[in-house]
């Protein structure tokens, strides 16, 4: 525990030092970032010491008196695991920031950046070690503020301001509407704010109360984590943030939502199966929708942001399975699910940070993150290409890297959960399984697209810059790639480390009953074996290929075979949009892509153009109308209560760019920001459907009447099935039934 305090001291001191050395920006930033890196290293050490010697509670907690009560910090297996993630990502991020801040544009601001980064890390550490609701919430808010300031670091750009505001509004709404009521309710019942007290009171809650508490927590923490449909801030904030911050945001800050959810689960003794199914389905939905939107994106960092939504979905799915296992009393399933969730938290932090850092290096290298303008970067930035490929293979969940291990655990949990349960619970797990397999395949399609279009082939646009990538950036990427490979190759070593966290989540799984768990995790060693086989076969084939090449006589380079066309140009290559279009049209009933097309016509054609967009439906159809409604209601309230000139209020509200003061500024800004560019009002999908069917009804369309009839029948049928008493349990059909049951009766 003392190590954690040392870490906090170092981080705060570095931040203070950076701010006070404002005269010499570069040394100040260097010192602060070195402090941050040192602290991250110590965080890893603290987590490791937790894994090595899970000491008694007294040695792992610290408390001191504060004006508002007692501040308590404590670590357990869950905190250790998240500390490990923070350290493993924080270290390369500090290193990368050092290279990133060499950009002359950001020179003067460098110390502020470094100081905020240190503070962000400090509050993250406090957050996962908090043992008191007040400390937790203060750290939560401070972390949000630091992240907000860092996301808006390039505040000259309007989209950076918009992204930062969306982040702040989204997480504040989540906190204010759901988390604060939850904590107030629990603390009010318990009479104390310490986590031990809250856990005690949670054990006494009835099923309905605990379900309400859980759903509040899911909504509040889910906003931070970015479950669909609360994910809209992710694709807005990630692309505009400075690259190291995107990596930290996606790798760690988003995971604090998951941490909160898991912390809440350690208090609630036995989750209701319906809550578990809810989490499972929300996770599946987030995952599939996130990756589908990612496939349709054109901007590299935005695409990665949608992949964060996907991976958060996978984690949610795993948590859901774990909860189901707990609810139905199958501890191995619960252990597999939670272990998969925890491992995926770390894995996603690693490979997503790697991908973001690599993407940022591309933006630095080629001056743009628009996928369709890039191409052929593997030759000018080979290390970057290699690191990105590693990250891509890992995020697709392919062996032999780390992503596979966690997805394998989750698949195992889902499959074994399916044959330990029945009815709706089994069906939910099958849905999760199908979703997970679909996510894997879609992620593969997406990263095949990104890697191929950005790094392979010929450059699509001549005249893009080719800046050199600083060595610090490459080193940071390698530092993230190494653990990806290690976890992938040696899951048998890493998996037992999750047990501390799993034990915190499943109290029934005490140290004495470790054997079923060990049995469940035992096959992990086989993965190493298969990975070794895979690498061995690859090496053998490479050697065979080398030997064959010795007899080569005509390995002369030549142009790509153009299928008979003699003058191919780089502009004719398949683009990312065309690569993804098949998939996007196959899922058009989910994504509703837009395609604007001026076709080539007439004898002397005018310039033709084709553009495709895939707007986020959750943003346009659900949240934008909601926010607009809230803003309108707020305006009404303001005209009612404000004695001044209502016109002035309206003007104040509509002044773009300047952040209007007042409590509703953020809301209206977000609401306005969600309008499509160009001021074209989009007729919403839902409204379109409703309007069309109303119209058809009014006209008396026979199909709509029939549909109405069908819907009524189905509803009646379902009600009948639900209301009528279940028949007595049927005889189990014997496997080899030679005679029909009727005969038995006679």
């Amino acid at each position, binding site marked *: 525990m003392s190590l954690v305090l040392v870490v906090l001291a170092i981080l705060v001191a570095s931040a203070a030092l950076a701010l006070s050395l404002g005269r010499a920006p570069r040394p100040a930033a260097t010192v602060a970032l070195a402090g941050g890196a040192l602290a991250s290293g110590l965080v890893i050490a603290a987590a490791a010491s937790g894994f090595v010697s899970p000491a008694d509670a007294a040695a792992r907690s610290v408390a001191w008196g504060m004006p508002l009560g007692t501040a308590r910090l404590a670590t357990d297996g869950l905190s250790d695991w998240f500390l490990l993630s923070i350290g493993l990502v924080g270290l390369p991020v500090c290193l990368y920031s050092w290279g990133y801040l060499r950009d002359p544009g950001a020179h003067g601001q460098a110390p502020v950046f470094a100081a905020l980064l240190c503070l962000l890390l400090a509050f993250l550490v406090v957050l996962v070690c908090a043992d008191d609701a007040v400390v937790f919430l203060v750290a939560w808010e401070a972390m949000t503020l630091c992240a907000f300031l860092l996301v808006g670091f390039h505040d000259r750009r309007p989209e950076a301001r918009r992204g930062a505001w969306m982040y702040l509004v989204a997480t504040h709404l989540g906190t204010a509407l759901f988390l604060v009521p939850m904590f107030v309710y629990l603390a009010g019942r318990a009479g104390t704010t310490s986590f031990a007290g809250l856990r005690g009171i949670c054990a006494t809650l009835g099923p309905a109360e605990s379900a309400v508490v859980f759903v509040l927590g899911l909504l509040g923490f889910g906003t931070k984590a970015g479950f669909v449909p609360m994910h809209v801030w992710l694709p807005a904030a990630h692309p505009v943030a400075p690259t190291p911050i995107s990596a930290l945001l996606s790798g760690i800050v988003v995971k604090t939502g998951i941490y909160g959810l898991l912390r809440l689960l350690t208090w609630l003794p036995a989750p209701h199966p319906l809550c578990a199914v809810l989490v499972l389905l929300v996770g599946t939905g987030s995952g599939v929708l996130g990756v589908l939107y990612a496939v349709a994106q054109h901007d590299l960092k935005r695409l990665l942001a949608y992949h964060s939504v996907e991976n958060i979905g996978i984690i949610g799915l795993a948590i859901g399975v774990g909860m189901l296992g707990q609810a139905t009393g199958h501890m191995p399933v619960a252990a597999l699910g939670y272990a998969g969730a925890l491992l995926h938290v770390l894995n996603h932090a690693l490979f997503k940070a790697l991908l973001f850092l690599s993407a940022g290096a591309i933006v630095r290298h080629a001056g743009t993150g628009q996928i369709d303008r890039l191409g052929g970067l593997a030759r000018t930035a080979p290390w970057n290409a290699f690191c990105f490929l590693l990250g891509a293979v890992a995020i697709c969940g392919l062996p032999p890297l780390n992503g596979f291990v966690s997805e394998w655990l989750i698949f195992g949990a889902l499959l074994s959960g399916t044959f330990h349960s029945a009815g709706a619970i089994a069906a939910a797990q099958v849905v999760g399984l199908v979703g997970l397999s679909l996510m894997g395949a879609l992620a593969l399609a997406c990263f095949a697209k990104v890697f191929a279009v950005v790094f392979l082939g010929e450059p699509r646009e001549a005249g893009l810059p080719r800046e050199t990538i600083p060595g610090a950036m490459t080193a940071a990427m390698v530092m993230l790639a190494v653990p990806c490979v290690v976890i992938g190759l040696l899951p048998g070593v890493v998996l037992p480390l999750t047990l501390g966290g799993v034990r915190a989540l499943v109290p029934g799984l005490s140290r004495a009953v470790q054997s079923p768990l060990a049995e469940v995790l035992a096959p992990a060693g086989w993965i190493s074996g298969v990975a070794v086989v895979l690498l061995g076969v690859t090496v053998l084939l490479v050697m065979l290929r080398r030997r064959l090449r010795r007899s080569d006589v005509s390995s002369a380079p030549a142009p790509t075979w153009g299928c008979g066309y003699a003058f191919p140009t780089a502009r004719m290559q398949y683009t990312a949009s065309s690569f993804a279009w098949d998939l996007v049209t*196959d899922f058009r009933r989910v994504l509703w892509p837009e395609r604007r097309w001026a076709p080539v016509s007439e004898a002397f054609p005018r310039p033709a153009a084709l553009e495709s967009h895939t707007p986020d439906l959750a943003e346009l159809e659900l949240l934008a109308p909601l926010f607009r409604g809230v803003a309108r209601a707020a305006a009404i309230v303001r005209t009612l209560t404000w004695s001044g000139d209502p016109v002035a209020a309206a003007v104040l509200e509509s002044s773009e760019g300047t952040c209007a003061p007042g409590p509703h500024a953020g809301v209206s800004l977000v609401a306005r920001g969600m309008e499509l560019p160009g001021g074209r009002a989009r007729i919403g999908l839902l409204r379109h459907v409703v309007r069309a069917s109303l119209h058809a009804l009014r006209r008396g369309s*026979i199909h709509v009447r*029939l549909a109405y009839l069908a819907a009524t029948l189905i509803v009646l049928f379902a009600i009948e099935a639900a209301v009528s008493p279940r028949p007595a349990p049927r005889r189990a059909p014997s496997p080899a039934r030679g005679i029909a049951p009727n005969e038995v009766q006679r």
Partner: protein
Amino acid sequence: MNTQMIVDSVLVLVILLDLAMLAVSRLATCIRLFALQSLLLALLPLAATTGRGEIPGLHEITVAAGALGLKVILLPRILLRIIRTGEIHQEIEPFIGFTASVLVGAGLVIGSFAVTRGLPLPVDRISDFLPPVSAATILVGLLILISRVKAVTQVVGFLVMENGIYLFGLLLLEQTPLLVELGILLDLFVGVFIMAIVVYHIRREFDHMDTHLLDTLKEA
């Protein structure tokens, strides 16, 4: 391969034919698939009784023969004849795409598996797939009825629904009087006969049989 498995397989085949009817894009194929489904259903009561080691009684034979004659031979003939003489284009025009309707259909099938488990039904039935399969067939028939433009496909949808109801009737085969069964068959025949005539005349009068456009007819 005992009787139980044969009956189960036939019922699963019935579901697959339901989905195939949603997937095919040609009218004539769709009608032939319906004929095949009806053939399977007509043979089902006979197979079930022989499976129990009994000789099929008059009741079963009459029902099977009626279904065979009407739904396997007569009605498909009438419909195919309309297509031929009415010079109707072979393509089915769906409101919902083929892939989407197959997926919706699959959802309906799985839904009926979930829903019918709770229904209070006689326990001694020939197969415990019977209630879900009949519910699924009724729902898919409705789906065909709703989601297709042409009048002929709506007739097919109606017939598929009837197949589902027939399956449901098999649950109570022993209890249902023969007269009721025959009455249903007669109703069906008359219904389709009238529809066939109407479809033929729609086609003659308006040169198309798109029911979608019929909505706009108003008495001037």
